[in-house]
């Protein structure tokens, strides 16, 4: 009996030791991962063969885009022996996570990515994009790029990508409603507000112009049209200019469009750009601020054949409100192992020929002034958008803080505070300016 008990104790002891060492191992594993992970960066190599991986955005109705890109990839593979191009399409909704993931894990990251041009400064600060200023400088096509497009790939004088297409917004209006009410397409922002009220008065079930409290890119032209700015740069550092008088005039002009006489705050305060476009496409609005890229939504909606587009007017008659020059760029990742190949491929993807084909396939406006003029001559729909672009466009502050400002919804919050009556223009603008400055300071 006793011997057995002893054995048992011994057994327990050895098991106990194993348990303790197990615990210790767990602890050691815990301690080994002491600091949170930081990507080592990777890259540095410049292989002249192998697979070049590309991530592009998956658009609604992506097939025509794939065809254009496949042609570019085939051509590129023929030009370079032993090189394969692997193109993947990533969903636009989760692109931020995907691209952040690519920066964090160079091993599974692509070499070339498409990215939204408002993200440029943020991605550069994250250390994700490669500086390709030298190649950009020696790229023949670069001199035909329009200045805003070049600005959208430039951070502190260096280029971090090639503009792929530009997206710009203009004023969609209902031709049938305007005819019925004897209205002319508005020539000034005041005229726009007056026309909106007339439409709403005649059609209670319609918004005069669909506006959204969260539609930042639809609201910005009002600020710029009144001579305001989002931020001012001085010696590389930015300060918000939202609380300056001209910007506040613009904020006032935009927020005064909310109300029962045009777009009731209860419904419109929370709307973003897509909702306003949907409202117009669904026949629920007399006007809306939409992009050249929204054409398909209109064609698929109830308003097919019943709408026209003019540039969004400015304050003075004949002026055009400066639009936000959105769009996407093609960039090369810092972590790439095929730098030369990646840049060459990027140049072909964002080249004039591809841009022209992408316009035909997807309606993406080229970033080269000459290519854009050429396609505009063939396609009357894009004329008001090209006119808007030619009149001069604006861009968001080229600061890494813009990503934070954008994602912390500082501007929507400002508009919504005014629209919902929580604050007046002065107070809301001052609050937003303060938050922007905090973000810039970081």
């Amino acid at each position, binding site marked *: 009996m006793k011997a057995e008990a002893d054995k048992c104790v011994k057994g*327990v002891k050895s098991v106990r030791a194993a348990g303790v060492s197990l615990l210790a191992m767990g602890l050691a594993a815990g301690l080994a991962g002491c600091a*949170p992970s930081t*990507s080592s960066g990777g890259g540095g190599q410049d292989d002249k063969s192998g697979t070049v991986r590309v991530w592009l955005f998956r658009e609604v109705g992506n097939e025509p885009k794939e065809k254009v890109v496949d042609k570019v990839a085939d051509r590129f593979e023929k030009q370079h022996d032993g090189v394969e191009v692997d193109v993947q399409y990533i969903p636009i909704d989760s692109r931020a996570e995907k691209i952040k993931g690519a*920066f964090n894990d160079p091993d599974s990251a692509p070499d070339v990515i498409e990215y939204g041009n408002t993200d440029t400064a943020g991605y550069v*600060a994250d250390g994700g994009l490669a500086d390709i200023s030298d190649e950009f400088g020696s790229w023949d096509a670069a001199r035909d790029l329009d200045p805003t497009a070049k600005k959208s790939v430039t951070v502190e004088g260096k280029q971090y990508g090639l503009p792929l297409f530009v997206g710009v917004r203009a004023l969609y209006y209902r031709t049938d409603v305007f005819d019925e009410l004897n209205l002319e397409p508005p020539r000034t922002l005041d005229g726009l507000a007056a026309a909106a009220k007339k439409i709403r008065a005649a059609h209670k079930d319609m918004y005069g112009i669909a506006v959204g409290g969260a539609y930042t890119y639809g609201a910005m032209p009002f600020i710029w049209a009144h001579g305001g700015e989002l931020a001012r740069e001085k010696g590389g550092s930015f300060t918000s200019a939202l609380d300056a008088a001209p910007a506040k005039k613009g904020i006032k002009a935009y927020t005064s469009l909310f109300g029962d006489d045009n777009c009731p705050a*209860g419904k419109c305060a*929370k709307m973003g750009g897509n909702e306003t476009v949907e409202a117009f496409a669904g026949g629920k609005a007399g006007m809306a601020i939409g992009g050249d890229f929204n054409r398909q939504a209109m064609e698929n909606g109830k308003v097919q054949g019943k709408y026209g587009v003019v540039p969004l007017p400015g304050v003075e008659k004949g002026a055009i409100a400066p639009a936000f020059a959105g769009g996407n760029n093609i960039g090369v990742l810092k972590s790439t192992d095929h730098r030369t190949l990646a840049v060459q491929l990027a140049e072909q993807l964002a080249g004039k020929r591809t841009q022209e084909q992408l316009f035909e396939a997807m309606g993406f406006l080229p970033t080269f002034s000459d290519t854009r003029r050429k396609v505009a001559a063939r396609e009357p729909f894009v004329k008001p958008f090209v006119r808007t672009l030619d009149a001069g466009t604006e861009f968001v502050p080229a600061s890494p803080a813009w990503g934070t400002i954008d*994602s912390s*919804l500082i501007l929507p919050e400002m508009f919504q505070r005014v629209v919902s009556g*929580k604050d007046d223009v002065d107070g809301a603008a001052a609050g937003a300016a303060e938050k922007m400055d905090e973000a810039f300071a970081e």
Partner: protein
Amino acid sequence: MSVATDGAKSRPRRTPGPAHAGGPPGPRPARSGGRGPTGGARRGGWTPWLYLAPALVVLAGLLVYPVYQLGLISFLDYTQAQVSGGEPTSFRGFGNYAELLSDPQFWNVLLATVVFAAACVLGTMTVGCALAVLLTRVRALPRLLLMLAALGAWATPAITGSTVWVFLFDPDFGPVNRVLGLGDFAWTYGRLSAFALVFFEVVWCSFPLVMVTTYAGIRAVPTEVVEAATLDGASVWRTWRSVLAPLLRPILIVVTIQSIIWDFKVFTQIYVMTGGGGIAKQNLVLNVYAYQKAFASSQYSLGSAIGVVMLLILLSVTLLYLKLLRRNGEEI
């Protein structure tokens, strides 16, 4: 008062009833029962740890390590730039916490979260317990229907539930406004009405747990106790307050704590129903706020600091609650 004393007296005698239904076994059988773990005491303090080791290792990996990382990151300057290697990671000490605590928005959000969570816990407990009592008093068919309805609500994913609720209350197409004759009243426009809408959804999706658990507890209460109360002429409310609630206390404590934790951490409902925090961020709660800081703006360290603050608040609320109960002579 006779009802109450009866109930209280019968409890120690019949501990296995409610105790087996949900909570861990009552203290009494463990202390006096002959089958207690006396062997462990003789072999010294290490043996229990040995048996616990596998569970502890798993727990350490799944719970302690993430919390440790959360705490660590909250002391660093850690944004996307640090993660992808654009800038070196640096130690900030309590910088993130100072930034957080000096942000008036944080206090606003904290207050809203506490009030909203309290309302949700109260609502969930009231509805859950009331329906549990109702379940014991209806026939088989309505009971089955009520159970199915509750299980349906329980099984609905939060995103789906929230989307459907938003649609039900839609100013243009929603049936609720039509039935109530509210015209095109926009529920998500006002701060209170938006919170109310989310409150309804949260109660709707979390009452089934309370109901089912409490119902199971009630079924385990010896029928003669309830019968005695009924014979004494106690009303339904009186029976609940003086007989069932005291008997079910361990169960109610557990579901309350669980509700507090859930409702304090509510995310999906607010995020989906108010469009990420409501008009001008009027409906932000702590979890959505943390998400905005941590993921939308990639300020992982600040987001972690919010997480740590939430953890501390929840821990202290739970501990305080347990301590108060213990002072009242309850143990769970």
